[in-house]
């Protein structure tokens, strides 16, 4: 029941227990895999381990109004409130809240920090009780399938038999697709935004650049940097800077920064941050390391790289959605070159091939991949309409 039916490889052996290090965060915590460990796709057994999650709104009497939000690579469960570490607004505060597109007056919103994350769910910075030290790279490899399997246990713990919706952008879209494919009876509608059913070669390449930047930082020390409280911040910042470029678009960068200089009248003939774009990226890198663990970054990027829904079906995507009762709504953005519209369209074609119910829109924007996190009125309008239509069909009583 708590194990994941996916065929793993080889080594099973003893279950890996994980002792949490982060325990003082707002929100909920749940210990999983205590009675029966969870079998990871890698074949390893995990448990007991902790996951942290946050909820907004109230679960109704028949538990039919739950929306699971799946966060992206560097996101976390603080969807709609100030971040407990940085104090900045929640990453989807524009979209989730009372009276907003995902209206928490109507819906019960759940977001679980992914496995291998660093905001309270089991990850490489937690303690390995066998050694009494932090796991580092001894933490087992986690896949998108494993993340979703853990989320399923949280959903079951809350007594929910069917989620009204599963929604997420980027890596959140991967989890959404995984949910719809693996647990279709538990998902009424699925909304993968700016996503893909597999990570492309180009995206794996960018992730590898980021990982190599971390590993090239001497402070990374093979992942064993926790004792000295001296994390590989330079490496992680560079990884973030490189990744951040992929979240934007050429035209957005041009519009926002152009060749504008940073607090100076002329170029300085040196390697200081002459250009605004340099200063901006450095700031992005610096602020990221405050809240993110470098090893978590390695593990989660790897989980995305390994994601390929069609792999189990001889590289054929439609069987991943065979006889799906799930109502899908796919959304892509014109200027997103990281998860381009063609990837969403590939999923739409697969869903058409199994005659699944699917809506698909491409939103015109110059904001690139990050558009799913930004103020995009057309995106909000479409999402709101889709949710309203699905709620009507589901006969969900709605206050709005």
């Amino acid at each position: 029941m708590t194990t994941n039916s996916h065929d793993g490889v080889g080594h099973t052996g003893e279950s890996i227990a994980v002792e949490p290090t982060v325990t003082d965060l707002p929100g909920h915590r749940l210990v999983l895999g205590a009675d029966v460990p969870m079998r990871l796709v890698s074949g390893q057994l995990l448990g007991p381990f902790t996951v942290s999650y946050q909820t907004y709104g109230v679960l109704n009497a028949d538990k039919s109004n739950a929306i699971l939000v799946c966060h992206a690579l560097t996101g976390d469960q603080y969807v709609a409130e100030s971040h407990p570490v940085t104090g900045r607004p929640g990453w989807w505060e524009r979209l989730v809240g009372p009276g907003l597109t995902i209206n928490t007056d109507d819906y019960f919103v759940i977001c679980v920090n992914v496995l291998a994350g660093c905001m309270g769910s089991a990850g490489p910075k937690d303690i390995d009780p066998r050694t009494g030290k932090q796991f580092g790279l001894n933490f087992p490899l986690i896949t998108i399938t494993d993340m979703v399997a853990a989320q399923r246990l949280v959903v079951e713990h809350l007594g929910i038999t069917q989620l009204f919706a599963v929604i997420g952008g980027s890596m959140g879209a991967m989890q959404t697709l995984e949910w719809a494919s693996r647990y279709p009876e538990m998902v009424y509608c699925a909304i993968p935004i700016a996503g893909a059913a597999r990570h492309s070669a180009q995206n794996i390449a960018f992730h590898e650049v980021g990982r190599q930047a971390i590993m090239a930082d001497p402070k990374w020390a093979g992942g064993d940097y926790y004792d000295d409280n001296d994390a590989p911040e330079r490496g992680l910042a560079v990884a973030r800077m490189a990744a951040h470029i992929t979240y934007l678009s050429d035209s957005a960068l041009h519009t926002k920064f152009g060749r504008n200089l940073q607090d100076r009248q002329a170029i300085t003939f040196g390697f200081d941050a002459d250009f605004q774009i340099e200063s901006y990226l450095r700031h992005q890198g610096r602020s990221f390391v405050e809240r993110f663990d470098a090893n978590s970054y390695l593990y989660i990027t790897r989980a995305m790289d390994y994601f390929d829904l069609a792999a189990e079906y001889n590289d054929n995507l439609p069987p991943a959605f065979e006889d799906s009762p799930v109502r899908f709504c796919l959304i892509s953005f014109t200027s997103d070159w990281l998860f381009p519209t063609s990837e969403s369209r590939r999923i739409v074609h697969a869903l058409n091939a199994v005659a699944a119910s699917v809506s698909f829109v491409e939103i015109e924007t110059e904001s690139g991949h990050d558009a799913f996190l930004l103020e995009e009125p057309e995106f909000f309008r479409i999402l709101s309409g889709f949710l309203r239509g699905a709620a009507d069909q589901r006969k969900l009583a709605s206050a709005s």
Partner: protein
Amino acid sequence: MTPTETNNAARIRIDQQLIAEMITPGSRVLDVGCGDGILLDLLVHDRQVDGRGIELSQEGVNGCVSRGLAVVQGDAQTDLHNYPDNAFDYVILSQTLPAIFDVKGVLGEMLRIGRCAVVSFPNFGYWRIRSGLAFRGRSPNSESLPYTWYESPNIRFFTLTDFTDLLAELGLKTERIVTIDGHGKANTRGRIGHWSNLLTEQAVFVITRK
């Protein structure tokens, strides 16, 4: 949703109204070129069909999805092949056929993925169009053909008789023909003769495989 429905009722075209009446409630329907989704909305809400749509224009798709309809952005000529055989009871093509390049291909795909094809189109054999061309020397422009020649999406100009000839050539079975005259009056017809080709402004055909 009530205000929208009232608006829709006011804006629905006569051929769409006729098509809606032909669809068995509760059936599976694909509307190819569903535009702003007025017909699909009517079918889903009044006829309780499991309705899907394909629409080429992004504006149309966004409007449909924001109204809660299951519509994807796509092209009738390239995207129908993704659907499995017999996925739908009805595949609808309303007023879109004149804009289709591969007419035979699209009709064939519609009847592969659906049991019935429901096709509505303007009749270029209508007497006003004939007289406009014969006496005024002007290309067709009417209520059912509201475009100037240089902006029209239509690339196929055919009459009722042309269409029945094509169905015969393709060996398809006509289950039902409803013609609409210049006054908006609908008539069910067993066949298309010279007079009906002359008096019909637009028509709805229900077609099946033999």
